[in-house]
């Protein structure tokens, strides 16, 4: 099979390299050339690990020449949000301050696991400062730009991770999601994103934000690629105290089993309030394709979002308190002012938010005794313009930066697994959340795959 390494999926690239119809070197050459020529417009990359990528590609080609078995991601280029440790680079986490940190001496666990499967790291990606962001803008590195309209936001904070995959610079990237930072850019950039269950994937050797809410996960242009990467990254890691003592539960072998017998409902109430017509259109298309007619109320979702907001503001402030005291002028002012305010919130209110979290988790788990999947919008609207400060939701003018995640926050608050699936509306795509019970990433991926086969969801090519 002849492939175009720029538009091919990860699975197609690995298949072609295994079959010998292309080489890892040819793929990496093409990807590095694409990054050189097109990332000027997208600003997705903050570092390109060219030498490392060429060495890894050469090793894969040599392994094949010697008849060695190649991994499931053999020769697949990928890049990571720059809060992942990459040996030889300081871990920026989108900040100016961390540029002075010594270079990391070892890769993050998830990079190591993807490379064991044969994937090739090609660089680190732009992000909102210290991940406290839904826009993908960054005052130090300039904004990552949406490949569908470079005047618009990618969404954040994993902005470069969304832009690089949607813009056909790499078929696979990794990001983090504390309140929506995988699902928001997946929605605004029109690609697939998986936020697994809290504790499923190791966060070892990544820069944290809100420890009790931080997740990592992949972005891709097909559901199969999401599953391929996710399966390669699963498994307990003693280096992350939160990583569950669970064996890997591969999803790819059963991803085409279909959705017969699954009970699927649409979230009502809070999850419809404030949604722009395009968000509701996308939701309706997905619900119709799945014949999901039941509407379900996730109880107290607004309060859940509020509690996530409080925990984020205060845990984030605690993380950065010393840096705020000594380096306040080196922060993005928008991040600094939020963190300083967070440092002033009494602990009593944070404790109440954590108690509410326990109550809310129990109520939502009761819903999963009745249904297997809940559908909800991923973002209230398509990509806003870069620099846009406010938008109107449900008749109220609100700051964009804090409110793009209104539909993602109540879900990650209790660590539920979600696949964000892009609906290719014109002129801009927008995603829907496929939400499953804890540890049932397999169910969310099967539903996403079913939708992909119907053509209702797909990652549109910005150049078409």
């Amino acid at each position, binding site marked *: 099979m002849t492939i175009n390494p720029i538009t091919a999926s990860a699975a197609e690239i690995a298949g072609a390299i295994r079959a010998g119809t292309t080489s890892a070197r040819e793929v990496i050459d093409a990807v590095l050339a694409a990054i050189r020529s097109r990332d000027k417009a997208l600003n997705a990359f903050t570092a390109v690990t060219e030498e490392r990528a060429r060495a890894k590609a050469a090793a894969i080609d040599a392994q094949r020449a010697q008849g060695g078995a190649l991994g499931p991601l053999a020769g697949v280029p990928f890049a990571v949000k720059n809060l992942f440790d990459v040996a030889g680079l300081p871990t920026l986490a989108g900040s100016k301050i961390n540029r002075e940190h010594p270079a990391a001496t070892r890769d993050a666990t998830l990079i190591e696991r993807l490379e064991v499967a044969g994937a090739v790291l090609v660089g680190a990606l732009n992000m909102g400062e210290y991940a406290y962001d839904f826009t993908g803008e960054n005052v130090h590195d300039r904004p990552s730009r949406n490949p569908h309209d470079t005047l618009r936001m990618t969404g954040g904070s994993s902005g470069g991770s969304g832009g690089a995959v949607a813009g056909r610079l790499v078929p696979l990237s990794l990001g983090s999601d504390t309140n929506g930072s995988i699902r928001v850019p997946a929605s605004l950039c029109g690609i697939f994103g998986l936020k697994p269950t809290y504790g499923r994937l190791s966060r070892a050797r990544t820069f944290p934000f809100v420890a*009790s809410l931080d997740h990592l996960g992949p972005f891709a242009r097909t559901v199969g690629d999401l599953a391929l990467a996710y399966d390669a990254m699963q498994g307990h890691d003693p280096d992350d105290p939160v990583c569950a003592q669970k064996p890997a539960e591969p999803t790819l072998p059963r991803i085409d089993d279909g959705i017969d017998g699954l009970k699927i409902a649409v979230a009502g109430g809070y999850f419809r309030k404030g949604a722009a017509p395009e968000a509701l259109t996308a939701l309706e298309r997905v619900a119709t394709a799945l014949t999901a007619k039941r509407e379900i109320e996730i109880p*107290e979702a*607004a*309060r859940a*979002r*509020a*509690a996530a*907001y*409080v925990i984020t*503001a205060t845990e984030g402030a605690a993380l950065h308190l010393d840096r*705020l*005291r000594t380096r*306040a002028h080196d922060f993005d*002012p*928008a991040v*600094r*002012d*939020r963190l*300083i*305010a*967070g*440092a*002033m*919130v009494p602990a009593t*209110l944070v*404790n*109440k*938010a*954590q*108690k*509410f*979290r*326990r*109550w809310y*988790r129990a109520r939502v788990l009761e819903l999963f005794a009745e249904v297997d999947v809940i559908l909800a919008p991923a973002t209230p609207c398509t990509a806003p313009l870069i620099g846009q400060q406010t938008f109107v939701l449900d008749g109220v003018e609100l700051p964009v930066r*804090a409110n793009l995640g209104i539909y993602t926050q109540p879900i990650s608050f209790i660590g539920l697994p979600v696949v964000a699936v892009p609906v290719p509306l014109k002129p801009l795509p927008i995603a829907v959340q496929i939400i499953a019970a804890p540890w049932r990433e397999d169910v969310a991926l099967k539903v996403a795959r079913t939708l992909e086969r119907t053509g209702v969801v797909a990652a549109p090519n910005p150049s078409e």
Partner: protein
Amino acid sequence: MTTKPDALDGLIEAAVQALDLPFEPAWQPAIKANLAVTLRQAALVSEFPLPDDTEPAPVFQA
């Protein structure tokens, strides 16, 4: 729980002093706006009645 808008100015001034937080007068409006939003969100959570024995979500295991 309701926070009087004017009370925030006093809270910010006291917190900056008592907690050794960085501050410049030009930052006041943004800090105040952010604090007001966060306390509004916290109030929404606080007013929800929960049993005394509700365990906070993070549970430490020895």
